[in-house]
């Protein structure tokens, strides 16, 4: 069983985000980055399958030089090999471009299963996994909470409104996972040392047989026009005085200002 897991290096969700001076991105200077949480669950799921059925786990990321840290973390958890698609043309690529680049790298791997996180916590799009399945022409199951493999393929459980949907997919397939699917392990110290010794295969779009206008910024069909911070929360209002008066004022407020009554 050869499993490929796509990982993304994203800003720590607990870190304060500052918008870049040009308004079209976020300031990365001093910002701590981590492996996208959903992808950590993806790595864990792949490692569990490997522990049950044998095989290898390959990590793939598309991103700048710093994204190698996400691969190192996954290797330290126990993945076997890692591929880093690093190409300046990917700056400004949209989700479809990234999916096309990942698909090209994965196609060369001859894998049985591709696992992605359900979404990445930086832009919450949940596009790359499904788009990847389309480019690879693999069946897909998204937001999976339980995955079982058999000779016939994979059985994937998805939590849908009020029920659990059970899908049977043929392999190779793309599966995107929810965080509830498992509890990711911590990298061990020997794992960290092994990750340090494992070479990461760095590849460009050209190496993958893609022209810059096929996957890079030049091919993007969507463009980020701007980032804005969420609106500041208004200060609360405290009503004071005689209880009868307060109730009257509260009802008026809820009806006329808040318009909830």
């Amino acid at each position, binding site marked *: 069983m050869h499993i490929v897991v796509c990982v993304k290096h994203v800003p720590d969700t607990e870190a304060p985000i500052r918008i870049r001076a040009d308004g079209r991105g976020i300031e990365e200077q001093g910002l701590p980055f981590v492996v996208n949480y959903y992808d950590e669950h993806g790595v864990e799921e792949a490692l569990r399958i490997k522990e049950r059925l044998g095989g290898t786990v390959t990590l793939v990321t598309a991103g700048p030089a710093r994204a190698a840290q996400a691969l190192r973390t996954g290797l330290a958890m126990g993945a076997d090999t890692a591929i880093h698609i690093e190409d300046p043309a990917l700056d400004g690529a949209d989700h479809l471009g990234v999916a096309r680049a990942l698909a090209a790298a994965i196609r060369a791997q001859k894998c049985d299963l591709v696992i992605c996180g359900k979404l990445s916590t930086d832009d919450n799009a949940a596009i790359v996994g499904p788009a990847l399945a389309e480019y690879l022409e693999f069946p897909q199951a998204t937001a999976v909470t339980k995955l079982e493999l058999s000779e016939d393929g994979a059985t994937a459980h998805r939590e849908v409104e009020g029920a659990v949907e059970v899908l049977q997919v043929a392999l190779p397939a793309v599966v995107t996972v929810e965080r509830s699917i498992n509890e990711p392990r911590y990298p061990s*110290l*020997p794992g960290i040392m092994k990750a340090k010794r494992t070479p990461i295969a760095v590849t460009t779009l050209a190496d993958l047989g893609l022209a810059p206008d096929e996957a890079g910024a030049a091919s993007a069909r969507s463009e980020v026009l701007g980032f804005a911070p969420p609106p500041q929360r208004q200060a609360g209002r405290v009503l004071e005085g005689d209880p009868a008066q307060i109730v009257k004022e509260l009802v008026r407020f809820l009806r006329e200002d808040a318009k909830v009554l």
Partner: protein
Amino acid sequence: MDFELSEEHRLVQSTVREWAASRLRPLAAEMDRTASYPPELIRELGDLGLMGVFIPEEYGGGGMDTISYCVALEEIARAEASLAAVLSVNNSLDCYPIFAFGDERQKRTYLPELAGGRKIGCYCLTEPTAGSDAGSLRATARDAGPEWVLNGTKIFVTNGVEADVLIIYARTDPGLHGHGISAFIAEKGDPGLSVGKVEHKLGIRASSTCEIVLEDCRLPQHRLLGERGKGFRIALAALDGGRIGIAAQALGIARASMEDAIAYAKERHQFGRPIAAFQANQWKIADMATRIQAARLLTYRAAWVRDQGRRHTSEAAMAKLYASETAMWSATQAVQMYGGYGYVQDYPVERHFRDAKITEIYEGTSEVQRLVIARQLLDAS
């Protein structure tokens, strides 16, 4: 010169930080109150490689360096200080001497178990009349043919209650100032070995501290660790590394004090504004941060010198001295900033204050560290 942690050190830091935040910190107050810890935590630390950080992988250890050890201990102690003591003793005072001075059989027998968190180690040096003057210890080991027969009383033994593997220092030959002392490996259940009085402590309450009583304790010949009569050298070499660990533990307590104080200063309002707006508190925070950074640099440098394979007696003593005094000082400032709330158990700084004190005492008091540092300088000139 590069002051940044390497990629793998940062990975150790983030891993241990996450583990400690989710598994340890929520239990800290309860562990302090009940003076106990869930034993499965040791197994988890073993699985991560943290019970034998610098023991090579072939002996079941983490295969990393002393900097990693410091980074990990600071993160553990930031969450809860007692477990840092348990871990530090196991790493520096048990795994290390067995690895550095043990024969192949001893290494194969004990290291995988100790480094894997399946067994816990302790270090028995101090006696009722031999504290800072450890070289004057009185426990004896008599060569009785196929066995050694040990007699004496060891006190203030960290991990003593749970310990499966005990390194015991006893006198095999007459001598002054540490001469004639040998090191032995005892195991829980060895005849004549028992746990005596269990201490009730001011801080690091979740780790056990007790008396170990040796009454005609019989150990096979192959339990002698290192050369006969050279045991005190082993004890001191273990302490050189151990002190770097205690410095890292102290750093964790100091950082906990500072981080908690900062959070509280921003939240607590008096005179119509957060108390962080008062310069009296800003100066406390600035001084804590400065001292912590200085302590961390001393600690990392001591670890680095050790990793170069060089003698680090003085560097370790300086790091331990400065970091422990920084922990006590920072915890004192934090309690002061919390005021009345700092004196009660509803907030963690009261615990940091109690936990900090031991770092100025064990593995050599601050006075002993100064003695060690001064002796190096005076002997050199």
